[in-house]
């Protein structure tokens, strides 16, 4: 069975929950991106790419609900996992904070252009969305965007950059992902894995 896990903030939690469910995956020692361990193979990918790998054939993956929704991946999501909790929010500089409805014509910087566009469309507000790959908080600071849509965990990063949360767009959590075809061709193995992880979640969290 092949697993794909995200490098970054969800990696430790992902390895731990799988280990508790009886799946020992060795973290890579140097810079390798594929590690084999007996029957299992571990692939390391960028968080944003995990749902795509699962959609196109890797059996199982773990990714945040933010990236699954952003990439609109056609994957099965049998379980929500009890880590990686945070929220996707709209934030802007404290001194000129306005409500969503007053944001017509604003420029929004984000790593989540799809989710941002959909959010403003639902509210009937026309904005320009620009995609950045990181340090989103920088954009309003130097004036290339009026507001940002980004992940908020504690709010410290926002505060440190003089930003306030205007509205929460969605709650985010880590999710267990399963490839649609693997669910059929490896039915028993995958059902067992899902049930085991479910037990771990019930017992430990």
């Amino acid at each position, binding site marked *: 069975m092949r697993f794909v896990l995200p490098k970054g903030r969800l990696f430790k939690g992902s390895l731990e929950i799988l280990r508790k469910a009886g799946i020992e995956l060795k973290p890579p020692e140097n810079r390798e991106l594929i590690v084999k361990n007996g029957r299992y193979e571990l692939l390391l990918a960028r968080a944003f790419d995990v749902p795509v790998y699962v959609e*196109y*054939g890797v059996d199982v993956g773990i990714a945040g609900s933010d990236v699954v929704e952003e990439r609109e991946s056609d994957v099965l999501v049998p*379980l929500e996992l009890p880590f990686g909790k945070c929220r996707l929010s709209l934030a802007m500089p404290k001194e000129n904070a306005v409500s969503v409805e007053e944001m017509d014509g604003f420029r929004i910087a984000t790593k989540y252009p799809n989710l941002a566009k959909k959010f403003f469309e639902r509210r009937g507000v026309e904005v320009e969305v620009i995609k950045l790959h990181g340090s989103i908080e920088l954009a309003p600071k130097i004036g290339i965007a009026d507001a940002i849509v980004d992940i908020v965990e504690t709010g410290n990063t926002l505060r440190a950059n003089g930003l306030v949360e205007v509205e929460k767009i969605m709650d985010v959590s880590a999710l267990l992902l399963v*490839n*649609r*075809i693997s*669910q*059929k*061709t490896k039915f028993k193995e995958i059902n067992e894995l899902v049930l085991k992880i479910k037990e771990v979640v019930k017992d430990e969290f």
Partner: protein
Amino acid sequence: MKKDLFSESERLADITKYLRRTFELWGYREIFLPTIEEFSEQLRKGTKFAYNNGFYVIKPDLTSQILANLKEPRRLKLYYISEVLNGGIKGNWQAGVEFIGGEDVKMQVEVLLTVITSLEALGIEDFYIDVGSLKVWERAIEGIEEFKAEIFRALTRRNFEIIERLPINEEKKEELWQLFNFRGKSCEYEKLNKIIEAVDDERVFIDFGTIRPLPYYSDIIFEVYSPKIGKPLGGGGEYTFKGVSAFGFAFDLNTLSKLFDGRIEKSRKRIGGEPKEAYKLAKELVKLGIPVEVGE
């Protein structure tokens, strides 16, 4: 620039040649639809645009486009090979059939056999077809209809936690869990049993976990897949058009082309020698439907 359009085109030409032949052998006629349709609520997918104060859709979903053009239901067996857009500029090539106004069960059996023989014509033998039913689910949630949307969300994501959180009794949850994981050759739904028996292929199964989240499906739905590839090869289902039942399916040609190894081409009969004799033989073979290549 896209990846090599010409080699991709060659593959699609090879595949669609065999699909066309199989669809026609089963009695389907090709339908030629316009690239652009006037916008209507009925059309799904496609890319919308405005022109001269009107709204239009480029390359919408074919089933919805056929129905939008069909004023009165009648018996029709159609097939199409077309690109479909989904809000953007990059399309997906599909090949599919629609059987409208046929007899219940016979229609489903015939379409499933069309799928099987199409794949076999492409030399693809390693596949499965999982057949499910929306009516079975609707019957299972009788009395708890208020949770229908959530139960179907649970089904499409295969997330049973959503059902566990609902305020319904344990017995019902257990029943839904059993259905969720049901896979076999016969079940309590006679219509499905009849279909599976008539199709009579060891690669076809009843699987109630198979759900295709398209708004127009009314009962029987199916998905075609191969253990060799992580994406479905295609799928289809039953729908009703102005009171008449219909059944259709579509292949995703890009996925299919990854499985097709072109080995059929190797069975092309190569003929050499004197042109007169060679072409005489070639002509006879072509008449019999055997592919030929006359050498230099």
